[in-house]
């Protein structure tokens, strides 16, 4: 059985889909001592990120124990996390 998703470090607030995952898909993800239980709120494409917790506007997105940007919208657990609701702080898209 292939792994469907992964959380790379215990304090991460996003996981990565290792397959195209459907809305409603339920994941139990172990990382270190932590168990993340997530039900996907929308489809997550292969390799894309989903939230494993609620993330408020302006809060940091942490992946592999490292800051990769901030939320530009409130993100619920199980939602897709990408350029529509987060941004890097070192380079920004044109508006």
């Amino acid at each position: 059985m292939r792994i469907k998703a992964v959380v790379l470090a215990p304090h991460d607030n996003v996981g990565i889909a290792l397959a195209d995952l459907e809305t409603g898909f339920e994941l139990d993800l172990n990382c270190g001592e932590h168990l993340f239980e997530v039900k996907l709120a929308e489809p997550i494409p292969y390799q894309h990120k989903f939230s494993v917790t609620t993330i408020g506007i302006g809060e940091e997105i942490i992946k592999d124990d490292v800051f990769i940007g901030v939320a530009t919208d409130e993100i619920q657990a199980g939602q897709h996390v990408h350029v529509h609701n987060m941004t890097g702080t070192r380079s920004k898209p044109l508006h």
Partner: protein
Amino acid sequence: MEFSGYLRADGLAGTRNLIGIISNGVCTSDAANRIAREVDGCVAFSHRENCQLISPDKEIVYRTLINLGKNPNLAGVLVVSAGCTDPCLDPLVIADGIAETGKPVEVCSIHQDGGLMKALSNGIDTARKMAGDASRIKRETLPISMLRQGVECGGSTPLSGPVTNAAQGSALDIIIENGGSGGFGETPEVIGAEQIIAARAVNADVKQKMIKVVQDYEANLRNSGLNFFGANPDPQNIKDGLSSIEEKAVGAVRKGGTTPLMEVIGFGERARGKGLFFVDTPGNDLISLTGLAAAGCNVITYSTECAVPYGFPFVPVIKITANRDHFHKYPDILDYLVDIDTALTHLDEVGAELLVLIVEVASGRRTQNEIIGYTGTCDLWTIAPAA
């Protein structure tokens, strides 16, 4: 652990035994390519820089060409020049620099040889003799401490970091733990992750240098007034799920493994010691490969999820991917498939398996690029706007 390589006069190890045909400027790029094409065992490093180079680019191009020539994978070097004097790069300065290694170096000049056809004929004849002499050098058993592994990534996805870059980094860790060396570049792709690498610096000076090269690069990008987002991460990176340069950088630095950072060098400079180094290069992979070769890498691994086709003229480039579909679709580009589940759960096993392939290639097994000879594209880096 050992491999079978060529011991050079300067004590370094070659994994290939080629004659390098190096053009001193764009005027002789075609000549270098034609000479190399005529003689088995010869490869050209040609480029487009010319006599309008000003400082600091002139120094950068000089040192890049000299240190490429010094790479231990080259048994000898023929420098091809048009024959002009200053402000062209002096072929004798390049040749003398390379000759410090003790390897044979020759120069041929279009003007002094009496024209292009005569220079080509003389150059081919010189290359023939040099390749013949080089073919008498035998491989011998050498410790893997003599490997210098360049690590590169291109066409990254969110899985490149924890899977293919982590695999490269794991193999590099083993080489360095056994007394070897290796390094990586692509400075703009470290923006946002420079503190991760800097935290591993061996001393305060290296730490400060690591942060400075990244900050300087970022400042140059900002000062250019161009929109960086969209180039890095690029549209394909974004489509694949990378959301910011920080996220791409976190993945990119995984290829540097986990050992202390010993050295930060400029483009075209040669790494001096053992252990991990960082070389300041642009994000363009082809130019970054040149930076790794000039730094003295005798083998390169290159993670590419999109199956970048090119290699490098005289350093074997082992292409690795986690994209199973691409691996089966492009067997003439990709050399190694990393299993995602194994990399995520037993990374050390993947690193050890990749190291076996690195040792095989270092010992003479040819990469897909080498088998089909797709190694001719090369470029180097200059900073100033064209004058």
